[in-house]
């Protein structure tokens, strides 16, 4: 592939630095705030629902939404089937490795072989 960007390496360097700052702020300050203060019980109870909501959101985004933020209407059947399969494997085996490996093999077969 040809390099297509018009930015120089120095500009890239500053881009990395600014991106790192922008990435660091939301990672650091909430964590600092809540580890230094007493956490109210309601906050902890609420936070227990955050991981599952976030993980589902990330999965739904990658399976159903394309890079232009439209709902995918074709080309994601293989991913949908693989996602259901991974869910089943994860539920039955509780193994992270098995879930990831079976998911990858399944999506390879569907996408690369059957093109669905």
């Amino acid at each position, binding site marked *: *592939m040809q*390099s*297509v*960007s018009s*930015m120089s*390496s120095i*500009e890239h360097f500053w*881009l*990395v630095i600014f*991106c*790192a700052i*922008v*990435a*660091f702020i*939301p*990672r*650091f*300050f*909430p*964590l600092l*705030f*809540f*580890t230094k203060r007493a*956490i109210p019980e*309601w906050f*902890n109870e609420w*936070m227990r*629902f*955050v*991981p*599952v*909501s*976030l*993980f*589902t*959101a*990330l*999965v*739904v*985004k*990658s399976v159903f*939404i394309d*890079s232009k*933020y439209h*709902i995918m209407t074709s080309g994601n059947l293989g*991913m949908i089937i693989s996602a259901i399969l*991974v*869910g089943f494997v*994860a*539920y039955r085996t*509780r193994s*992270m*490795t098995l*879930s*990831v490996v079976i*998911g*990858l093999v399944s*999506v*390879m077969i569907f996408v*690369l072989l059957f093109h669905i």
Partner: protein
Amino acid sequence: MKKNEPNWLMVLRTVMPLGLSYIPIGLACGVLLHAAGFNHLLTGLISVMVFSGGAQFLIASMLTINAPMTTIILMMFFLELRYALLGSSLSRYLKGQPLPFILGFAFSMNDENYAVNYLKFATDKHWKPKQALLVEHYSLLFWTVSNIIGSLIGSALTIDLKVVDFALTALFIYMAIMQTKSRLIILVATLSGVLTIFFLVLMKSTLGLVVATLIASLCGYFIERHLVEHKPESHLLYKIHDPTRPLDDK
């Protein structure tokens, strides 16, 4: 669980599935950054400093369409806002840690190692903040090395992004299933899924993820509070059976 296993090996074993799924994704990311004009050193630097698959893919694709720097940084800001939620929900396990630790922990936290650590903290009461930090560093190592190798092989590699990206999707599906301990959680997850589609299409930005997560988790919190107070026998509070354990196990 092996008794005499050294700590570094035990943590490495915990992080291994994540580390292995980072290899193809990191390679793909390195290839894309190379194509976007990043040199090997900068690819290594961004992998350490930003350490986020989604963000690095976004930067690479924005650079290839010659987007201005301010636009990229602004998009990064919205993309990374969700980390505020990750930090908040892990904070109760990191209470009393000194500032340098919090700094280091926040610096290398991302979706995937957060997922691994949240699961460990929630299920293993011996899981220590130091081990959580080691999980982050192992995953950082896998990620950075894969990115640099991807950058070095550059165009010699053709990668189907859809397939590679599914490694992370599978990881998140596994994590969501592990969190599903009651019928209420299934309801919250379903709600989150529907809201995600709605807000992503509406807002045309990953901020939709944050809004969907906030609304779904708040709904879960209020429904649970209402049920515990008024309808403790509700079917929604029923536990989900873990098939790897006998039925009478609590």
